[in-house]
């Protein structure tokens, strides 16, 4: 799953080093448009339902956190 998340992230923003960054939202590396596009891509790729409740920096600050969010939502389904 992490690989697929990384693939989506790299396609979205090829200029960002997603391997090391832990502050994608806190430091404004991903802006609100990136985040909305990312949510759309994750929804399409994994079939998960990301809601308003899930849009928190701690769910999107790193590739690991994003993968963890997707996993949690998959498990909930």
């Amino acid at each position, binding site marked *: 799953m992490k690989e697929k998340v990384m693939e989506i992230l790299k396609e979205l923003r090829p200029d960002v080093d997603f391997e090391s960054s832990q502050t994608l939202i806190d430091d*404004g590396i991903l*802006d*609100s*448009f990136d*985040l*909305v*596009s990312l*949510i*759309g891509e994750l*929804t399409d790729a994994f079939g998960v339902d*990301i*809601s*308003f*409740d899930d*849009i*928190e920096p701690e769910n999107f600050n790193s590739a690991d956190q994003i993968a963890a969010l997707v996993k949690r939502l998959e498990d*909930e389904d």
Partner: protein
Amino acid sequence: MNMTVNSLPFLVFFTLTAVIYYLFPRLQWVVLLLASLVFYSLAGARTFLWLILTILTTYGAVRWMETMDDQLKKRQAGELKEASHEIKKAEKARTKKKKRHVAALFIIVNIGILALLKYGNFLIDNANYVLGLFGISPVNRLGLAAPLGISYYTLQSIGYVLDVYKGKCKPEHNILKTALFVCFFPQMTQGPIGRFPDLAPQLFAVHKFSYENLSFGLQRVLWGFFKKCVIADRMKPSVDAIFRSADCSGMTLFLGCVYMAIQIYADFSGYMDIVAGFSEVLGIHLMENFKRPFLSRSLGEYWRRWHLSLSFWFRDYLFYPLSISKPAVRFGKWGKKCFGIRIGKIFPAMFALFIVWFSTGLWHDSSWKYILWGVANGVILMSSLFLEPYFQKWKAFFHIHEESGAWRFFCLLRTFFLVAALKVFPGSPTTQGVFDTVRRIFTDFRPSLAFEAWFPKLVPQDLIFLAIGLTAMLAVDLVQEKQPVRALIARQNTALRWLLYLGALAGILIMGTFSISMTGGFAYAQF
């Protein structure tokens, strides 16, 4: 009596509050609440009830949601302990849904109050216009006055309720503390729109008097006064005269837009410095509302640096929910089908962006010119989103290096003039006047070197003072972009620091305009 934060009565009021605040450390939050209520009731006792209603509904909504969570927890520990995963999940979803209904009800009530008080007459005026077309007699306007700061405290309360709904913070059990969070007096009239997890713990904590807070706070107040008195209020008569004049040239009108951009920045950020400074004296650090907006390289970046608390509020509580809502997703799917994946992908964001900017315009004022201003911002931002890939190709074709100094400077100027050009909407006295102003700029430019055409209502001495003020403001912004100015000042020796403080104070006294600032208000207070 409306005490503006730069008036003498407010200075006396604040000093008294601060003294009592530090004399009774255990009662600090009570002192702040009483001061806030006094501040608010002086602004108009008639509108006080509306504030009380928002406090009560805020308290009621968060406690109601907490009760639902508690009931679920009890059931999970009792009757649901042995239940299947599906049943537990369904119960959790049911509670979440009920909490969502409570939050929705709270929002409807409070947006309803805001709509009634701030937009009621606007709707009636528009309805009367349509009725008039059919020869139907008009409906009477409402005689209701909107309370001070309603646009700010309503959004702050909604943010708190939604944060509790999302589980980002625990609800406050003391209704009086909730009241303090809703109406903390320094931020009441113009924000910043605080977030409960950041602001509330500071409001309710006990703060020891600290020389650093006093010194840093007063420095900031002094700087706010400098921007307000030396720049904003000195430019205001010229800006007002330009937009009120029916015969000034297109060139002067264009200059009026530029001047207004600078004046509003000095006015609004000056206010923020003053209230942030006063709050710092009390040991309370308010959210930063400005991050050098005129150093932005795009309009999007500008809005991430200007009035941050409002931009972030709209982003978190309107843009995100809208852009992942079912209509937005459907719109995105339709876009992908009709225009391809690349363009269709941005449709949900564009859908949300349009509504957010329409709302931002409406939030500023109940008039079509502000709605048009909001929509114009939205259209530019949507266009840049849509055209971004073409810009990238264009830049690659012309070998433009984005980090080169010349390109960055060009982008700064481009953004500044774009922001200034958009001031044609709020600057013009009426909605019809906006079209008239634009027409005159393009068809009646009349370039001139006459002093009056460049600087109406100003005299050469004003220009000297403004040049000094603007240079200081730009210098501080440039330094602040690299490192905190106050930390830099704190590292200097005592003599130099005091020279700076006295210089700023002397600057305000010599170059400041007091006839307006000590009796009038701030531009954003009207919102």
